[in-house]
Protein backbone atom coordinates (compact mmCIF):
# COMPACT_ATOMS: atom_id res chain seq x y z
CA UNK A 1 0.00 0.00 0.00
CA UNK A 2 2.79 2.43 0.93
CA UNK A 3 4.54 1.66 -2.32
CA UNK A 4 1.35 2.31 -4.30
CA UNK A 5 0.90 5.64 -2.55
CA UNK A 6 4.52 6.62 -3.21
CA UNK A 7 4.04 5.70 -6.86
CA UNK A 8 0.95 7.90 -7.06
CA UNK A 9 2.79 10.72 -5.33
CA UNK A 10 5.64 10.55 -7.80
CA UNK A 11 3.17 10.45 -10.63
CA UNK A 12 1.33 13.44 -9.21
CA UNK A 13 4.57 15.42 -9.10
CA UNK A 14 5.32 14.47 -12.68
CA UNK A 15 1.84 15.60 -13.70
CA UNK A 16 2.37 18.92 -11.94
CA UNK A 17 5.60 19.37 -13.86
CA UNK A 18 3.83 18.68 -17.16
CA UNK A 19 1.05 21.06 -16.14
CA UNK A 20 3.62 23.79 -15.55
CA UNK A 21 5.07 23.06 -19.00
CA UNK A 22 1.64 23.38 -20.60
CA UNK A 23 0.87 26.64 -18.83
CA UNK A 24 4.23 28.04 -19.81
CA UNK A 25 3.99 26.80 -23.38
CA UNK A 26 0.51 28.23 -23.81
CA UNK A 27 1.46 31.63 -22.47
CA UNK A 28 5.05 32.31 -23.47
CA UNK A 29 6.34 29.79 -25.95
CA UNK A 30 3.71 30.13 -28.66
CA UNK A 31 4.83 31.61 -31.95
CA UNK A 32 2.72 34.67 -31.30
CA UNK A 33 4.51 37.45 -29.44
CA UNK A 34 3.02 37.72 -25.93
CA UNK A 35 4.31 41.25 -25.52
CA UNK A 36 2.43 42.30 -28.63
CA UNK A 37 -0.70 40.48 -27.45
CA UNK A 38 -0.53 42.17 -24.05
CA UNK A 39 -0.09 45.66 -25.39
CA UNK A 40 -2.64 45.21 -28.14
CA UNK A 41 -3.17 48.51 -29.89
CA UNK A 42 -0.34 50.18 -28.00
CA UNK A 43 2.14 47.72 -29.52
CA UNK A 44 3.00 50.32 -32.14
CA UNK A 45 5.46 51.90 -29.71
CA UNK A 46 8.69 49.86 -30.13
CA UNK A 47 10.23 51.18 -26.91
CA UNK A 48 7.34 49.97 -24.75
CA UNK A 49 7.30 46.66 -26.59
CA UNK A 50 11.00 46.22 -25.89
CA UNK A 51 10.59 47.16 -22.22
CA UNK A 52 7.78 44.67 -21.73
CA UNK A 53 9.75 41.94 -23.47
CA UNK A 54 12.59 42.55 -21.07
CA UNK A 55 10.25 42.51 -18.08
CA UNK A 56 8.80 39.15 -19.12
CA UNK A 57 12.28 37.80 -19.94
CA UNK A 58 11.12 37.29 -23.52
CA UNK A 59 14.55 38.25 -24.85
CA UNK A 60 16.10 35.12 -23.33
CA UNK A 61 16.05 31.60 -24.81
CA UNK A 62 12.87 29.62 -24.04
CA UNK A 63 14.48 27.08 -21.71
CA UNK A 64 15.97 29.88 -19.64
CA UNK A 65 12.63 31.72 -19.57
CA UNK A 66 10.92 28.58 -18.33
CA UNK A 67 13.58 27.96 -15.72
CA UNK A 68 13.43 31.46 -14.27
CA UNK A 69 9.62 31.28 -14.19
CA UNK A 70 9.54 27.83 -12.60
CA UNK A 71 12.19 28.59 -9.99
CA UNK A 72 10.10 31.61 -9.02
CA UNK A 73 6.94 29.53 -8.84
CA UNK A 74 8.60 26.99 -6.54
CA UNK A 75 9.15 29.69 -3.93
CA UNK A 76 5.66 31.11 -4.59
CA UNK A 77 7.00 34.06 -6.54
CA UNK A 78 4.75 34.39 -9.58
CA UNK A 79 6.25 37.64 -10.79
CA UNK A 80 4.61 41.05 -10.70
CA UNK A 81 1.15 41.88 -11.94
CA UNK A 82 1.25 43.93 -15.12
CA UNK A 83 -1.54 46.19 -13.91
CA UNK A 84 -0.67 47.90 -10.64
CA UNK A 85 2.78 46.40 -10.29
CA UNK A 86 1.88 44.36 -7.19
CA UNK A 87 3.55 40.97 -6.66
CA UNK A 88 1.13 38.36 -8.00
CA UNK A 89 1.28 36.26 -4.84
CA UNK A 90 0.29 39.27 -2.72
CA UNK A 91 -2.53 40.08 -5.15
CA UNK A 92 -3.88 36.53 -5.12
CA UNK A 93 -3.48 35.77 -1.41
CA UNK A 94 -6.78 37.23 -0.17
CA UNK A 95 -8.55 36.01 -3.29
CA UNK A 96 -7.40 32.46 -2.68
CA UNK A 97 -8.76 32.73 0.85
CA UNK A 98 -12.07 34.04 -0.45
CA UNK A 99 -12.40 31.22 -2.98
CA UNK A 100 -11.37 28.64 -0.42
CA UNK A 101 -14.01 29.89 2.02
CA UNK A 102 -16.60 29.66 -0.73
CA UNK A 103 -15.53 26.12 -1.64
CA UNK A 104 -15.32 24.93 1.96
CA UNK A 105 -18.73 26.32 2.91
CA UNK A 106 -20.17 24.65 -0.19
CA UNK A 107 -18.53 21.34 0.65
CA UNK A 108 -19.58 21.40 4.29
CA UNK A 109 -23.18 22.11 3.34
CA UNK A 110 -23.53 20.09 0.15
CA UNK A 111 -21.74 16.84 1.00
CA UNK A 112 -23.83 15.75 4.04
CA UNK A 113 -27.12 16.77 2.40
CA UNK A 114 -26.24 14.99 -0.83
CA UNK A 115 -25.22 11.86 1.08
CA UNK A 116 -28.44 11.93 3.08
CA UNK A 117 -30.52 12.26 -0.09
CA UNK A 118 -28.59 9.45 -1.78
CA UNK A 119 -28.91 7.13 1.21
CA UNK A 120 -32.62 7.88 1.59
CA UNK A 121 -33.16 7.20 -2.12
CA UNK A 122 -31.44 3.84 -1.67
CA UNK A 123 -33.67 2.95 1.27
CA UNK A 124 -36.73 3.93 -0.79
CA UNK A 125 -35.42 2.18 -3.87
CA UNK A 126 -37.83 2.25 -6.83
CA UNK A 127 -40.37 4.18 -4.81
CA UNK A 128 -41.49 7.71 -5.55
CA UNK A 129 -38.69 9.51 -3.68
CA UNK A 130 -36.04 7.47 -5.47
CA UNK A 131 -37.53 8.15 -8.90
CA UNK A 132 -37.95 11.85 -8.35
CA UNK A 133 -34.48 12.31 -6.87
CA UNK A 134 -32.95 10.38 -9.78
CA UNK A 135 -34.82 12.58 -12.25
CA UNK A 136 -33.86 15.79 -10.45
CA UNK A 137 -30.16 14.85 -10.28
CA UNK A 138 -30.21 13.95 -13.98
CA UNK A 139 -31.68 17.35 -14.83
CA UNK A 140 -29.46 19.39 -12.51
CA UNK A 141 -26.28 17.59 -13.55
CA UNK A 142 -26.86 18.52 -17.18
CA UNK A 143 -27.43 22.25 -16.83
CA UNK A 144 -24.25 24.37 -16.87
CA UNK A 145 -23.66 25.90 -13.45
CA UNK A 146 -23.85 29.51 -14.58
CA UNK A 147 -27.37 28.83 -15.89
CA UNK A 148 -28.33 27.39 -12.50
CA UNK A 149 -26.95 30.56 -10.93
CA UNK A 150 -28.98 32.79 -13.21
CA UNK A 151 -32.15 30.88 -12.49
CA UNK A 152 -31.38 31.29 -8.77
CA UNK A 153 -30.90 35.04 -9.27
CA UNK A 154 -34.15 35.31 -11.24
CA UNK A 155 -36.09 33.39 -8.60
CA UNK A 156 -34.59 34.74 -5.41
CA UNK A 157 -33.29 38.22 -6.03
CA UNK A 158 -34.91 39.95 -8.99
CA UNK A 159 -38.30 38.40 -9.58
CA UNK A 160 -41.20 38.56 -7.16
CA UNK A 161 -38.98 37.63 -4.24
CA UNK A 162 -36.25 40.15 -3.55
CA UNK A 163 -34.67 38.12 -0.78
CA UNK A 164 -30.97 38.13 -1.58
CA UNK A 165 -28.43 40.39 -3.27
CA UNK A 166 -27.84 39.35 -6.88
CA UNK A 167 -24.16 40.21 -7.00
CA UNK A 168 -21.43 40.36 -4.42
CA UNK A 169 -20.33 43.77 -3.25
CA UNK A 170 -17.27 44.08 -1.08
CA UNK A 171 -13.61 43.15 -0.99
CA UNK A 172 -12.08 39.71 -0.77
CA UNK A 173 -10.93 40.17 2.83
CA UNK A 174 -14.40 40.49 4.30
CA UNK A 175 -16.13 37.59 2.61
CA UNK A 176 -17.30 35.95 5.80
CA UNK A 177 -18.79 39.12 7.24
CA UNK A 178 -21.50 39.27 4.57
CA UNK A 179 -23.25 35.93 4.90
CA UNK A 180 -26.33 36.99 2.94
CA UNK A 181 -24.16 37.71 -0.09
CA UNK A 182 -22.76 34.19 0.06
CA UNK A 183 -26.09 32.40 -0.09
CA UNK A 184 -26.62 32.45 -3.86
CA UNK A 185 -23.06 31.48 -4.89
CA UNK A 186 -22.99 28.67 -2.32
CA UNK A 187 -26.45 27.47 -3.34
CA UNK A 188 -25.44 27.40 -7.02
CA UNK A 189 -22.19 25.56 -6.40
CA UNK A 190 -23.94 23.12 -4.06
CA UNK A 191 -26.50 22.31 -6.75
CA UNK A 192 -23.67 21.85 -9.25
CA UNK A 193 -21.57 19.46 -7.13
CA UNK A 194 -24.32 17.41 -5.52
CA UNK A 195 -25.75 15.18 -8.29
CA UNK A 196 -22.76 12.81 -8.63
CA UNK A 197 -22.49 12.51 -4.83
CA UNK A 198 -26.19 11.66 -4.58
CA UNK A 199 -25.92 9.06 -7.32
CA UNK A 200 -22.80 7.45 -5.91
CA UNK A 201 -24.23 7.34 -2.40
CA UNK A 202 -27.40 5.72 -3.68
CA UNK A 203 -25.53 3.10 -5.72
CA UNK A 204 -23.09 2.33 -2.93
CA UNK A 205 -25.82 2.13 -0.30
CA UNK A 206 -27.90 -0.22 -2.47
CA UNK A 207 -24.91 -2.49 -2.87
CA UNK A 208 -24.27 -2.55 0.86
CA UNK A 209 -27.93 -3.12 1.73
CA UNK A 210 -27.95 -6.20 -0.49
CA UNK A 211 -24.78 -7.59 1.05
CA UNK A 212 -24.72 -10.68 3.19
CA UNK A 213 -23.59 -8.98 6.37
CA UNK A 214 -26.55 -6.61 6.29
CA UNK A 215 -28.82 -9.58 5.68
CA UNK A 216 -27.16 -11.36 8.59
CA UNK A 217 -27.66 -8.34 10.84
CA UNK A 218 -31.32 -8.23 9.93
CA UNK A 219 -31.74 -11.97 10.43
CA UNK A 220 -30.36 -11.85 13.90
CA UNK A 221 -33.12 -9.42 14.72
CA UNK A 222 -31.35 -6.09 15.03
CA UNK A 223 -33.64 -3.11 14.76
CA UNK A 224 -33.59 -1.60 11.24
CA UNK A 225 -32.19 1.65 12.63
CA UNK A 226 -29.11 -0.13 14.00
CA UNK A 227 -28.71 -2.10 10.77
CA UNK A 228 -28.64 1.07 8.73
CA UNK A 229 -26.52 3.27 10.98
CA UNK A 230 -24.10 0.72 12.41
CA UNK A 231 -23.75 -1.76 9.58
CA UNK A 232 -24.79 -0.27 6.26
CA UNK A 233 -23.94 3.45 6.24
CA UNK A 234 -20.27 3.28 7.39
CA UNK A 235 -19.48 0.74 4.69
CA UNK A 236 -21.26 2.70 1.98
CA UNK A 237 -19.23 5.86 2.58
CA UNK A 238 -15.85 4.65 1.19
CA UNK A 239 -16.55 4.99 -2.52
CA UNK A 240 -18.54 8.16 -1.87
CA UNK A 241 -15.57 9.82 -0.17
CA UNK A 242 -13.68 9.44 -3.43
CA UNK A 243 -16.45 11.09 -5.42
CA UNK A 244 -16.65 13.93 -2.90
CA UNK A 245 -12.90 14.51 -3.26
CA UNK A 246 -13.24 14.56 -7.06
CA UNK A 247 -16.11 17.03 -6.81
CA UNK A 248 -13.98 19.31 -4.65
CA UNK A 249 -11.35 19.22 -7.40
CA UNK A 250 -14.02 20.13 -9.91
CA UNK A 251 -15.01 23.07 -7.69
CA UNK A 252 -11.55 24.60 -8.16
CA UNK A 253 -12.32 25.09 -11.86
CA UNK A 254 -16.07 25.40 -11.46
CA UNK A 255 -15.82 28.55 -9.35
CA UNK A 256 -14.59 30.56 -12.36
CA UNK A 257 -17.98 30.99 -14.03
CA UNK A 258 -19.80 31.35 -10.70
CA UNK A 259 -17.44 34.02 -9.37
CA UNK A 260 -17.75 35.85 -12.67
CA UNK A 261 -21.54 35.68 -12.50
CA UNK A 262 -21.83 36.85 -8.89
CA UNK A 263 -18.87 39.22 -9.11
CA UNK A 264 -17.32 37.33 -6.22
CA UNK A 265 -13.72 38.48 -5.52
CA UNK A 266 -11.97 35.10 -5.66
CA UNK A 267 -9.41 33.47 -7.97
CA UNK A 268 -11.97 32.80 -10.70
CA UNK A 269 -12.83 36.48 -10.90
CA UNK A 270 -9.11 37.25 -10.75
CA UNK A 271 -8.56 34.99 -13.75
CA UNK A 272 -11.33 36.64 -15.78
CA UNK A 273 -10.07 40.13 -14.86
CA UNK A 274 -6.53 39.12 -15.81
CA UNK A 275 -7.73 37.78 -19.16
CA UNK A 276 -9.62 41.01 -19.76
CA UNK A 277 -6.50 43.06 -18.99
CA UNK A 278 -4.12 40.58 -20.67
CA UNK A 279 -2.25 40.33 -17.39
CA UNK A 280 0.00 37.40 -18.27
CA UNK A 281 1.67 36.64 -14.90
CA UNK A 282 -1.74 36.47 -13.17
CA UNK A 283 -3.19 34.20 -15.88
CA UNK A 284 -0.21 31.87 -15.47
CA UNK A 285 -0.44 31.84 -11.68
CA UNK A 286 -4.19 31.21 -11.49
CA UNK A 287 -4.34 28.48 -14.13
CA UNK A 288 -1.34 26.76 -12.55
CA UNK A 289 -2.96 27.04 -9.14
CA UNK A 290 -6.28 25.62 -10.26
CA UNK A 291 -4.59 22.75 -12.08
CA UNK A 292 -2.41 22.06 -9.04
CA UNK A 293 -5.42 21.90 -6.74
CA UNK A 294 -7.10 19.59 -9.25
CA UNK A 295 -4.06 17.28 -9.40
CA UNK A 296 -3.67 17.22 -5.61
CA UNK A 297 -7.34 16.50 -5.02
CA UNK A 298 -7.26 13.69 -7.56
CA UNK A 299 -4.24 12.31 -5.76
CA UNK A 300 -6.07 12.45 -2.44
CA UNK A 301 -9.10 10.78 -4.04
CA UNK A 302 -6.82 8.04 -5.35
CA UNK A 303 -5.27 7.44 -1.95
CA UNK A 304 -8.67 7.52 -0.25
CA UNK A 305 -9.89 5.01 -2.80
CA UNK A 306 -6.90 2.77 -2.11
CA UNK A 307 -7.34 3.07 1.64
CA UNK A 308 -11.06 2.34 1.42
CA UNK A 309 -10.43 -0.82 -0.57
CA UNK A 310 -9.77 -3.61 1.93
CA UNK A 311 -8.08 -5.80 -0.69
CA UNK A 312 -5.36 -3.23 -1.33
CA UNK A 313 -5.07 -2.26 2.31
CA UNK A 314 -4.57 -5.79 3.58
CA UNK A 315 -2.65 -7.46 0.77
CA UNK A 316 0.42 -5.26 0.95
CA UNK A 317 0.83 -4.86 4.69
Amino acid at each position, binding site marked *: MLRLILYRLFYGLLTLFVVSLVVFAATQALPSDPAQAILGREAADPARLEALRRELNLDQPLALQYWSWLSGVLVLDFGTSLSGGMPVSELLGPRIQASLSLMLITAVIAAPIAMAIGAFAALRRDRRFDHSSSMVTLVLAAVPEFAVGIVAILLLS*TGGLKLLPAVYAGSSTEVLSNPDQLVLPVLTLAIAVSPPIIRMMRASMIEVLESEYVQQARLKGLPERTVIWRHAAPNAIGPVAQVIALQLGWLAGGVVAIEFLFNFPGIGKALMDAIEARNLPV*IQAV*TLLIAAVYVLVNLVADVVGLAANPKVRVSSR
Partner: protein
Amino acid sequence: MSTADTARTGGTATAPAGPVRRPGLLRTAWRYHRTKIGVVLAGAVLLVAVAGPFLSPFSPTEMAGLPNSADAEGTLLGTDEVGRDVFSRFLHGGYTLVSIAVLSALAGVVGGAVLGLVAGYLRNWADELIMRTNDMLLAFPQLVLALLLLSILGPQVWLIVVIIALSHANRVARVTREATLKVVEQDFVKSAEAIGVPRWRIMAAEILPNITSPLLVELGLRITYSVGTIATLSFLGMGLQPPTADWGLMINEGRTAITIQPWAVVLPVAAVAVLTIGANLITDGLSRASIGIDRGVEK
Protein backbone atom coordinates in the same frame (compact mmCIF):
# COMPACT_ATOMS: atom_id res chain seq x y z
CA MET B 1 -28.54 -6.73 -19.04
CA SER B 2 -25.06 -7.38 -17.73
CA THR B 3 -21.93 -6.26 -19.52
CA ALA B 4 -20.92 -9.84 -20.20
CA ASP B 5 -24.29 -10.38 -21.81
CA THR B 6 -23.82 -7.45 -24.11
CA ALA B 7 -20.42 -8.64 -25.15
CA ARG B 8 -21.71 -12.13 -25.80
CA THR B 9 -24.66 -11.14 -27.95
CA GLY B 10 -22.43 -8.56 -29.60
CA GLY B 11 -20.01 -11.38 -30.35
CA THR B 12 -22.53 -13.49 -32.18
CA ALA B 13 -23.70 -10.48 -34.13
CA THR B 14 -20.44 -10.21 -36.02
CA ALA B 15 -19.72 -13.91 -36.30
CA PRO B 16 -19.24 -14.82 -39.95
CA ALA B 17 -22.22 -17.22 -39.81
CA GLY B 18 -24.58 -14.29 -40.24
CA PRO B 19 -25.84 -11.62 -37.88
CA VAL B 20 -28.27 -12.54 -35.13
CA ARG B 21 -29.74 -9.22 -34.15
CA ARG B 22 -31.03 -8.34 -30.75
CA PRO B 23 -33.37 -5.37 -30.49
CA GLY B 24 -31.24 -2.37 -31.45
CA LEU B 25 -29.83 0.00 -28.89
CA LEU B 26 -31.93 2.90 -30.14
CA ARG B 27 -35.11 0.89 -29.98
CA THR B 28 -34.37 -0.34 -26.47
CA ALA B 29 -33.55 3.20 -25.37
CA TRP B 30 -36.81 4.47 -26.87
CA ARG B 31 -38.74 2.30 -24.40
CA TYR B 32 -37.72 4.56 -21.55
CA HIS B 33 -39.98 7.55 -20.96
CA ARG B 34 -36.97 9.73 -20.22
CA THR B 35 -35.62 9.15 -23.72
CA LYS B 36 -38.88 10.34 -25.25
CA ILE B 37 -38.99 13.40 -23.02
CA GLY B 38 -35.37 14.09 -23.87
CA VAL B 39 -36.01 13.86 -27.60
CA VAL B 40 -38.93 16.27 -27.31
CA LEU B 41 -36.96 18.80 -25.23
CA ALA B 42 -33.76 18.69 -27.27
CA GLY B 43 -35.78 18.55 -30.51
CA ALA B 44 -37.70 21.70 -29.62
CA VAL B 45 -34.52 23.67 -28.93
CA LEU B 46 -32.84 22.30 -32.07
CA LEU B 47 -35.87 23.40 -34.06
CA VAL B 48 -35.56 26.93 -32.67
CA ALA B 49 -31.83 26.94 -33.41
CA VAL B 50 -32.18 25.71 -36.99
CA ALA B 51 -35.46 27.27 -38.12
CA GLY B 52 -35.18 30.38 -35.96
CA PRO B 53 -33.07 32.49 -38.32
CA PHE B 54 -35.70 32.07 -41.06
CA LEU B 55 -38.58 33.12 -38.83
CA SER B 56 -37.15 36.12 -37.06
CA PRO B 57 -38.91 39.44 -37.66
CA PHE B 58 -35.70 41.50 -37.48
CA SER B 59 -32.07 40.90 -38.36
CA PRO B 60 -30.02 40.09 -35.22
CA THR B 61 -27.99 43.29 -35.43
CA GLU B 62 -30.55 45.83 -36.61
CA MET B 63 -31.93 48.50 -34.27
CA ALA B 64 -35.58 47.93 -33.50
CA GLY B 65 -36.23 50.59 -30.90
CA LEU B 66 -34.87 52.37 -27.87
CA PRO B 67 -32.40 50.38 -25.74
CA ASN B 68 -33.72 48.15 -22.95
CA SER B 69 -37.38 48.87 -23.44
CA ALA B 70 -39.58 45.94 -22.55
CA ASP B 71 -42.41 47.06 -24.85
CA ALA B 72 -40.78 48.69 -27.87
CA GLU B 73 -43.29 49.07 -30.69
CA GLY B 74 -43.30 46.25 -33.25
CA THR B 75 -41.23 43.90 -31.12
CA LEU B 76 -42.54 40.84 -29.33
CA LEU B 77 -40.39 40.91 -26.21
CA GLY B 78 -38.77 44.33 -26.36
CA THR B 79 -35.22 45.39 -27.09
CA ASP B 80 -31.82 44.68 -25.58
CA GLU B 81 -29.18 47.04 -24.19
CA VAL B 82 -28.36 48.55 -27.60
CA GLY B 83 -31.89 48.51 -28.97
CA ARG B 84 -31.89 45.27 -30.95
CA ASP B 85 -34.93 42.99 -30.99
CA VAL B 86 -34.51 40.39 -28.21
CA PHE B 87 -36.75 37.79 -29.83
CA SER B 88 -34.92 37.96 -33.16
CA ARG B 89 -31.56 37.66 -31.45
CA PHE B 90 -32.86 34.65 -29.54
CA LEU B 91 -33.96 33.00 -32.79
CA HIS B 92 -30.56 33.63 -34.37
CA GLY B 93 -28.49 32.77 -31.30
CA GLY B 94 -28.67 29.00 -31.20
CA TYR B 95 -27.42 27.94 -34.59
CA THR B 96 -23.71 28.52 -34.01
CA LEU B 97 -23.78 27.16 -30.48
CA VAL B 98 -25.50 23.96 -31.53
CA SER B 99 -23.35 23.40 -34.59
CA ILE B 100 -19.99 23.94 -32.91
CA ALA B 101 -21.11 21.87 -29.92
CA VAL B 102 -22.12 18.94 -32.12
CA LEU B 103 -19.04 19.32 -34.30
CA SER B 104 -16.61 19.33 -31.37
CA ALA B 105 -18.41 16.41 -29.70
CA LEU B 106 -18.28 14.38 -32.93
CA ALA B 107 -14.62 15.17 -33.51
CA GLY B 108 -13.82 14.33 -29.89
CA VAL B 109 -15.66 11.00 -29.99
CA VAL B 110 -14.13 9.95 -33.32
CA GLY B 111 -10.63 10.95 -32.21
CA GLY B 112 -11.04 9.39 -28.78
CA ALA B 113 -12.47 6.20 -30.24
CA VAL B 114 -9.50 5.77 -32.58
CA LEU B 115 -6.99 6.41 -29.79
CA GLY B 116 -8.81 4.14 -27.34
CA LEU B 117 -9.17 1.38 -29.91
CA VAL B 118 -5.49 1.48 -30.82
CA ALA B 119 -4.44 1.61 -27.17
CA GLY B 120 -6.78 -1.17 -26.11
CA TYR B 121 -6.01 -3.51 -29.01
CA LEU B 122 -2.28 -3.08 -29.50
CA ARG B 123 -1.50 -2.96 -25.75
CA ASN B 124 2.14 -1.99 -26.40
CA TRP B 125 4.16 1.20 -26.13
CA ALA B 126 1.40 3.00 -28.07
CA ASP B 127 -1.03 2.12 -25.27
CA GLU B 128 1.36 3.44 -22.62
CA LEU B 129 2.06 6.59 -24.59
CA ILE B 130 -1.57 7.36 -25.36
CA MET B 131 -2.91 6.64 -21.91
CA ARG B 132 -0.14 8.42 -20.00
CA THR B 133 -0.48 11.51 -22.20
CA ASN B 134 -4.19 11.25 -21.54
CA ASP B 135 -3.73 11.23 -17.78
CA MET B 136 -1.60 14.34 -18.01
CA LEU B 137 -4.19 16.17 -20.09
CA LEU B 138 -6.90 15.13 -17.66
CA ALA B 139 -5.06 17.10 -14.98
CA PHE B 140 -6.59 20.25 -16.43
CA PRO B 141 -10.19 21.11 -15.77
CA GLN B 142 -11.73 21.40 -19.24
CA LEU B 143 -12.92 24.97 -18.81
CA VAL B 144 -9.64 26.27 -17.39
CA LEU B 145 -7.60 24.75 -20.21
CA ALA B 146 -9.94 26.36 -22.72
CA LEU B 147 -9.72 29.72 -20.95
CA LEU B 148 -5.93 29.52 -20.82
CA LEU B 149 -5.55 28.87 -24.54
CA LEU B 150 -8.33 31.18 -25.71
CA SER B 151 -7.08 34.07 -23.60
CA ILE B 152 -3.66 33.90 -25.24
CA LEU B 153 -4.58 32.93 -28.79
CA GLY B 154 -7.75 34.97 -28.92
CA PRO B 155 -11.31 33.64 -29.00
CA GLN B 156 -11.78 31.98 -32.38
CA VAL B 157 -14.39 29.45 -33.36
CA TRP B 158 -12.03 26.83 -34.82
CA LEU B 159 -9.87 27.02 -31.72
CA ILE B 160 -12.88 26.40 -29.48
CA VAL B 161 -13.81 23.35 -31.55
CA VAL B 162 -10.24 22.00 -31.38
CA ILE B 163 -9.86 22.57 -27.63
CA ILE B 164 -13.23 21.09 -26.71
CA ALA B 165 -12.72 18.15 -29.08
CA LEU B 166 -9.29 17.46 -27.56
CA SER B 167 -10.54 17.53 -24.01
CA HIS B 168 -13.37 15.19 -25.01
CA ALA B 169 -11.03 12.88 -26.90
CA ASN B 170 -8.94 11.90 -23.93
CA ARG B 171 -12.00 11.09 -21.84
CA VAL B 172 -13.58 9.12 -24.69
CA ALA B 173 -10.28 7.27 -25.24
CA ARG B 174 -10.43 5.94 -21.68
CA VAL B 175 -13.94 4.60 -22.10
CA THR B 176 -13.18 3.12 -25.53
CA ARG B 177 -10.07 1.41 -24.22
CA GLU B 178 -12.05 -0.21 -21.40
CA ALA B 179 -14.69 -1.40 -23.86
CA THR B 180 -12.04 -2.66 -26.30
CA LEU B 181 -10.27 -4.65 -23.59
CA LYS B 182 -13.48 -6.60 -23.00
CA VAL B 183 -13.83 -7.45 -26.69
CA VAL B 184 -10.24 -8.37 -27.64
CA GLU B 185 -10.37 -11.55 -25.57
CA GLN B 186 -13.35 -12.88 -27.55
CA ASP B 187 -12.93 -15.88 -29.84
CA PHE B 188 -13.94 -14.11 -33.03
CA VAL B 189 -11.04 -11.69 -32.61
CA LYS B 190 -8.66 -14.58 -31.95
CA SER B 191 -9.90 -16.42 -35.04
CA ALA B 192 -9.55 -13.35 -37.20
CA GLU B 193 -5.99 -12.97 -35.93
CA ALA B 194 -5.30 -16.65 -36.63
CA ILE B 195 -6.29 -16.40 -40.27
CA GLY B 196 -4.10 -13.34 -40.69
CA VAL B 197 -6.59 -10.50 -41.04
CA PRO B 198 -4.63 -7.21 -40.91
CA ARG B 199 -4.76 -5.50 -37.56
CA TRP B 200 -6.42 -2.34 -38.79
CA ARG B 201 -9.20 -4.46 -40.26
CA ILE B 202 -9.65 -6.34 -37.02
CA MET B 203 -10.02 -3.02 -35.22
CA ALA B 204 -12.39 -1.57 -37.79
CA ALA B 205 -14.50 -4.60 -38.66
CA GLU B 206 -14.36 -6.89 -35.60
CA ILE B 207 -13.93 -4.66 -32.56
CA LEU B 208 -15.54 -1.36 -33.55
CA PRO B 209 -18.99 -2.83 -34.29
CA ASN B 210 -18.99 -4.33 -30.80
CA ILE B 211 -18.30 -1.14 -28.95
CA THR B 212 -20.83 1.08 -30.68
CA SER B 213 -23.15 1.14 -27.65
CA PRO B 214 -20.69 2.76 -25.23
CA LEU B 215 -19.57 5.07 -28.04
CA LEU B 216 -23.12 6.22 -28.69
CA VAL B 217 -23.60 6.87 -24.99
CA GLU B 218 -20.34 8.82 -24.99
CA LEU B 219 -21.52 10.89 -27.95
CA GLY B 220 -24.66 11.87 -26.08
CA LEU B 221 -22.67 12.72 -22.98
CA ARG B 222 -20.12 14.73 -24.97
CA ILE B 223 -22.81 16.74 -26.74
CA THR B 224 -24.33 17.59 -23.35
CA TYR B 225 -20.92 18.72 -22.07
CA SER B 226 -20.06 20.60 -25.26
CA VAL B 227 -23.23 22.67 -25.14
CA GLY B 228 -22.59 23.48 -21.48
CA THR B 229 -18.92 24.34 -21.91
CA ILE B 230 -19.32 26.39 -25.07
CA ALA B 231 -22.26 28.31 -23.60
CA THR B 232 -20.14 28.95 -20.49
CA LEU B 233 -17.22 30.17 -22.61
CA SER B 234 -19.50 32.55 -24.48
CA PHE B 235 -21.01 33.69 -21.21
CA LEU B 236 -17.49 34.46 -19.95
CA GLY B 237 -16.86 36.52 -23.10
CA MET B 238 -14.34 33.98 -24.42
CA GLY B 239 -16.56 32.40 -27.05
CA LEU B 240 -18.33 34.08 -29.93
CA GLN B 241 -17.72 37.79 -30.06
CA PRO B 242 -20.13 40.73 -30.33
CA PRO B 243 -22.18 41.67 -32.26
CA THR B 244 -22.96 38.02 -33.02
CA ALA B 245 -26.26 36.81 -31.65
CA ASP B 246 -25.36 33.88 -29.40
CA TRP B 247 -27.18 32.50 -26.39
CA GLY B 248 -24.16 32.48 -24.07
CA LEU B 249 -23.14 35.97 -25.14
CA MET B 250 -26.73 37.25 -24.84
CA ILE B 251 -26.76 36.11 -21.20
CA ASN B 252 -23.48 37.93 -20.59
CA GLU B 253 -24.70 41.13 -22.25
CA GLY B 254 -28.18 41.08 -20.78
CA ARG B 255 -27.41 40.23 -17.16
CA THR B 256 -26.73 43.81 -16.05
CA ALA B 257 -30.20 44.86 -17.17
CA ILE B 258 -31.86 41.72 -15.87
CA THR B 259 -34.46 43.64 -13.85
CA ILE B 260 -35.71 45.87 -16.67
CA GLN B 261 -35.31 43.46 -19.60
CA PRO B 262 -35.36 39.93 -18.17
CA TRP B 263 -36.26 38.30 -21.53
CA ALA B 264 -32.78 38.88 -22.96
CA VAL B 265 -31.49 36.54 -20.24
CA VAL B 266 -34.46 34.26 -19.58
CA LEU B 267 -34.87 33.03 -23.17
CA PRO B 268 -31.24 31.99 -23.82
CA VAL B 269 -30.83 30.50 -20.33
CA ALA B 270 -33.99 28.46 -20.82
CA ALA B 271 -32.82 27.31 -24.24
CA VAL B 272 -29.39 26.21 -23.00
CA ALA B 273 -30.89 24.51 -19.95
CA VAL B 274 -33.61 22.68 -21.88
CA LEU B 275 -31.14 21.56 -24.56
CA THR B 276 -28.65 20.14 -22.04
CA ILE B 277 -31.41 18.51 -20.00
CA GLY B 278 -32.88 16.92 -23.14
CA ALA B 279 -29.48 15.68 -24.29
CA ASN B 280 -28.72 14.23 -20.88
CA LEU B 281 -32.10 12.45 -20.69
CA ILE B 282 -31.43 10.86 -24.09
CA THR B 283 -27.94 9.89 -22.95
CA ASP B 284 -29.34 8.32 -19.80
CA GLY B 285 -31.88 6.37 -21.84
CA LEU B 286 -29.12 5.14 -24.17
CA SER B 287 -26.88 4.14 -21.31
CA ARG B 288 -29.67 2.27 -19.53
CA ALA B 289 -30.37 0.46 -22.77
CA SER B 290 -26.73 -0.41 -23.38
CA ILE B 291 -25.48 -1.47 -19.96
CA GLY B 292 -28.42 -1.12 -17.67
CA ILE B 293 -26.82 1.31 -15.23
CA ASP B 294 -27.04 5.03 -14.76
CA ARG B 295 -24.37 7.04 -16.39
CA GLY B 296 -25.45 10.61 -16.88
CA VAL B 297 -23.24 13.64 -16.64
CA GLU B 298 -20.64 13.49 -13.91
CA LYS B 299 -18.75 16.65 -13.29
